[in-house]
């Protein structure tokens, strides 16, 4: 599995349908990942669109040395952190809108995390600090390798390993018996 690199090569050669394949494969996961940082589904979707438009505008920036998924998640993380840095003003949302957003978030979660057990882990993940949450998300949900996750998080492999170890320990406490299976 090349995580979209092959499709992107085809897109660069002029095959428009290859872009659809990349979107179908990676867009929802990226939105879900960015949402972990920004906690606003619409903003996450907006940022994911920006990330994908980067692929179209700067065609030569992706050098095929990492998987396209890793590259997109790196861009996504960078854009999400940037968004968070500039998002200083708290916005108020109407209750009905909040319910809608919650509902959409659940739908997205169900799309990305098909497995029931994964959803339970995801719920527990919300209680963990950001770095631990992101490490678990990338390795268990997105199935990236340790090296790829380290690249996305701009950390060393060892640091990711340590984060995962501590995250697992926390999750075992939070999930009880279910956590033992992680």
């Amino acid at each position, binding site marked *: 599995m090349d995580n979209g690199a092959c499709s992107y090569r085809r897109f660069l050669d002029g095959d428009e349908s290859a*872009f*659809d394949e990349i*979107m*179908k494969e990676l*867009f929802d996961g990226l939105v879900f990942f960015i949402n972990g940082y920004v906690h606003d*589904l*619409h903003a996450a*979707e907006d940022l994911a*669109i*920006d990330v*994908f*438009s980067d692929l*179209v*505008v700067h065609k030569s920036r992706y050098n095929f040395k990492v998987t396209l998924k890793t590259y997109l998640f790196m861009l996504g993380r960078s854009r999400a952190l940037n968004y968070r840095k500039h998002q200083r003003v708290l916005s108020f949302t109407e209750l009905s809108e909040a319910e*809608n957003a919650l509902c*959409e978030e659940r739908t*997205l979660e169900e799309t990305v995390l098909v497995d029931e057990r994964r959803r339970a882990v995801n719920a527990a993940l919300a209680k963990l600090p950001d770095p631990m949450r992101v490490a678990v998300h990338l390795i268990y949900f997105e199935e990236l390798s340790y090296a790829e996750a380290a690249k996305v998080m701009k950390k060393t492999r060892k640091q990711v390993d340590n984060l995962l170890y501590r995250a697992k320990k926390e999750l075992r406490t939070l999930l009880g018996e279910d956590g033992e299976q992680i």
Partner: protein
Amino acid sequence: MMRSFEERKAEIFRRSEKRIREQRHRRRILLSCVPLFLCVLLAAIFVLPGRGTNESADRESQRAEAAENASGPIASVHVEALGQAGASWEIGDEKAVRALSRLFESAQERSEEPSFPPDSSLAQADRIGDFRITCVPESGEPVSCLLENETLYFEGSGKTAVLTVEEQAELARILQLPQ
């Protein structure tokens, strides 16, 4: 409400096109600035120092012109050996006249008021070894000076200049004097 797949795709391409347009616009502005910058750079390199050189050249030519207007170029030189009756000769060789003119100019530049002006009451016999050199310009008054050993006395301005050893040797060569 979250966007559908087609809406997302359309939005991605809409934003991409917008960004590409902005990029092209920025590049065009940058490209239009490059020739302007080059023009300014070339002007700074070639025109400004050139202007400085022209100014100094102008000044030089004006000075030469002024010097020429004062007495005009020397046409011939008349040399009279004082103390020896009838001993005089003419130097008409263009090269020698030019060299003499240069020598006089440099001597004139550093000439000053004499502390002991030459004694004009001396008898001809006492002036053996002295020379009167008269420069005759193409137009204007002839200028004459007195050569006493190594001192040149300009009769018009009343100033004197002491010649260096090299100048003395050159003057002797030009005037065809025995060294």
